[in-house]
């Protein structure tokens, strides 16, 4: 892996980030989480390599599930009013997170290698969102 190759990938990342952010901001109203994964795993001149990585799709689904649950519980308890919209809007400010997974893993000239990568940012964000939901339902005596 030469220096040039890495620069090329980084450049790629930057371009995609900007495009994704614009699109998501325009379209996403109820759940403003921007999450991008640019995880690179390159295996070269190797055999018996096992790679396990974070399921980004599952993470996004989970985040959306929690955010929708928050919006629904507030909509029912406070009603579909300006007040309810303002509460969701305020919470949205906090939930609005932008994160990227830009891990790069290179396996070269190796045999019998097992690699597991974790996207810590995604995991932490999901946990924080769940905490907000739990706090809301606790306040409303649901639990």
């Amino acid at each position: 892996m030469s220096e040039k190759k890495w620069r090329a990938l980084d450049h790629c990342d930057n371009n995609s980030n900007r495009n994704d952010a614009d699109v998501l901001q325009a379209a996403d109203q109820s759940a403003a989480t921007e999450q991008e994964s640019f995880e690179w795993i390159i295996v070269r001149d190797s055999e018996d390599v096992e790679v396990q990585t974070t399921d980004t799709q599952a993470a996004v689904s989970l985040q959306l599930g929690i955010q929708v649950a928050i919006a629904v519980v507030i909509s029912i308890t406070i009603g579909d009013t300006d007040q309810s919209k303002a509460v969701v809007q305020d919470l949205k400010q906090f939930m609005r997170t932008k994160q990227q997974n830009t891990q790069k893993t290179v396996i070269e000239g190796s045999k019998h290698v097992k690699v597991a990568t974790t996207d810590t940012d995604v995991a932490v964000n999901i946990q924080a969102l769940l905490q907000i939901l739990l706090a809301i339902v606790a306040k409303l005596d649901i639990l």
Partner: protein
Amino acid sequence: MSDSLKNSKVLSDKVIDLLVSNTFQKNGVNIDKAKKKLTDEQKQAFKELVEDLTKQVNSFVKQPSSKQENSK
């Protein structure tokens, strides 16, 4: 990194509680009134939903680290 993953709560409960309380208060939400709007059926449905989401989050968070241990 592994420490934050082991701990299922990434932020202190107090901070989250303050955030939620402040948001409700700021927007003039009457919590007691809001509580009454939920029927028992809705409460039960939300309870199940929250339990389900909690399980999913826990298994998602634990998954990668346990795999890592197995591979060692």
